[in-house]
């Protein structure tokens, strides 16, 4: 534990230092990659239990809308507060559905989350007070009461996102090795046995779902802080598909792989939309196929053992 914290601190400091010297466009890209990576990290939690949610886009949108609304109406503009609020709101809104969803497995879980997220999408599009299909804008955040000058915004957002990502990754690593984390893995292997041994499958799955919602809400809020805008497309199922893609690309063997995969997707997306503007979806699809075909256990399997071992 101590070693883990020390390493994480070193890596974070290294990244913070290196990030300062990057050009602005790259800082923005990394910020987005890590904000989206947090959403996918939530998905990895679920996937360790054997289910894949196709509606994480809505959770991210809940966090994003919360941040934008709080910013606009309550004038709470702090960059450290907004992501937390986003996460908590996504968690609270999701919580009533969690026990229900915890009963489903496989394709039915995926489809039900997709259906619910599309209901949410429909509501967002039709709600005029939330800007309808145009969405709402968000101004520039502050940090600990300080307003940010033009030159510092990009790096500050990157640094804040990095800190949130680092804390979440360390937490995820600890969580995966905890009793509940291990029970989650046992559920994927055989949930009936878990029940016989006295574990509560439904409770574990519900809690995982709520935790995933928190991470997604936080990621959504961070992304909106960087973008300065949110619209219902955040919650559309194709966006949710991208989060799933990142989680699959990462595999469930390493938490760091999630951030790396998210960055890879961001790079592939930016470059293919810059160099093949008419066929970037084609490039993305092809890339996805190649990954699934040749890296079945995800990027994480490149530096961890071949067999799906526990992340500890």
């Amino acid at each position, binding site marked *: 534990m101590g070693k883990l914290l020390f390493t994480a601190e070193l890596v974070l400091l290294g990244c913070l230092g290196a990030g300062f010297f990057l050009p602005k466009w790259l800082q923005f890209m990394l910020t987005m990659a890590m904000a989206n990576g947090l959403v996918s990290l939530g998905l990895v939690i679920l996937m360790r239990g054997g289910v*894949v949610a196709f509606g994480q886009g809505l959770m991210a949108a809940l966090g994003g809308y919360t941040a934008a609304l709080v910013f606009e109406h309550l004038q709470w503009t702090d960059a450290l507060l907004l992501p937390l609020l986003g996460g908590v709101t996504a968690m609270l809104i999701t919580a009533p559905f969690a026990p*229900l969803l915890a*009963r*489903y497995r*496989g*394709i*039915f879980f*995926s*489809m*039900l989350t*997709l*259906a*619910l997220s*599309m*209901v949410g*999408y*429909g*509501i967002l*599009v*039709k709600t005029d007070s939330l800007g309808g299909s145009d969405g709402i804008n968000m101004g520039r955040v502050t940090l600990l009461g300080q307003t940010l000058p033009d030159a510092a915004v990009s790096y500050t957002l990157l640094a804040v996102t990095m800190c949130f990502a680092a804390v979440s990754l360390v937490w995820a690593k600890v969580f995966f090795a905890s009793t509940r984390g291990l029970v989650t893995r046992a559920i994927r292997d*055989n949930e*009936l*046995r878990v029940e016989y041994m006295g574990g509560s499958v439904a409770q574990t799955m519900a809690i995982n779902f709520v935790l995933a919602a928190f991470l997604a809400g936080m990621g959504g809020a961070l992304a909106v802080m960087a973008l300065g805008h949110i619209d219902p497309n955040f919650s559309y*199922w*194709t966006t949710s*598909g991208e989060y*799933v*893609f990142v989680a*699959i690309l990462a595999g469930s063997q390493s938490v760091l792989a999630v951030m790396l995969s998210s960055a890879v997707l961001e790079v592939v997306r930016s470059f293919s939309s810059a160099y093949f503007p*008419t*066929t*970037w*979806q*084609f490039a*993305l*699809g*092809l890339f*996805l*196929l190649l990954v*699934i*075909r040749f890296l*079945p256990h995800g990027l994480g399997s490149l530096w961890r053992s071949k067999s799906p071992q526990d992340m500890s």
Partner: protein
Amino acid sequence: MQLALTILVDGLSYASWLFIVALGLTLVFGVLKILNIAHGSFYALGAYMAASAVALATDWNLPPYFSLLAMLLAAVMLAALVAPLTERGLLRFFYGRDEVLLVLVTYALFLMLEDITKLIWGANPYYVSEPYGLFGNIDIGSQSYVGYDLLLVVLAGLVGGLVWWGLNRTRFGKIVTAVIHSPEIAASMGIKVSRVYMVAFAIGLFLAALGGAFTAPMISVQPGVSVGVIIISFAVVIIGGLGSIEGAAIGALIVGMARAMAVHLMPVAELFSVYVVMALVLMFRPEGLFQRIQARKI
């Protein structure tokens, strides 16, 4: 009363093409265990092919009824061309993997087909309205309805009946059922499973294309039609129970009616009425309305 009839006719015609498309989706899932997101792209391809075919038929000055034949041929051609390419060239490398992973594979295929469609047909919408007027209007009460809409109902009944007959009354149908139950045992009995997979996939693709071809005259064919269709057909097969023909029929009817009711009574809810129904069904019948109970592994 008038409104109820309008809703009924609207719902029925919507349910008809939806049933044809969803039938293909449920068939492919039943046999290959793949929930195919690219099914929506096949629908779109069918619509584009039909648009081109009808335009061609008009250029050759063929009699107007030939446009229906052209639409049918477009769907057949698409299935014959694309199905072997997709199934043999791509999907077979992923058989046996996790269901959700297979969904993602077809998602990738969907992304690629979106761009391919745009490359071939461009981003501008196509209109093929000629066949829509072929059957004139039919008066029921004081309201008149487009004859083409009712043709769709007939077509859906025909297609559903044919598929049911093919699966339940023919030798090939028995073979398919055997493969659905256990591909390994079927193979050991001398059945060429890979061929069954390909034929089933081709039929599924044909149904998607057929649905697309025959709805082409009712819509503007443009990029983006695939997305809406796939999500709504998902809802249909999930409501009915994956892999069930009756389920697809009932699911299509429920979705068609729910949508028609929303459009006429509560337009705001049109967008998500379908998903609300789907969520409700899943809450009370987690496996869909027509799914048989399965044993669990201990």
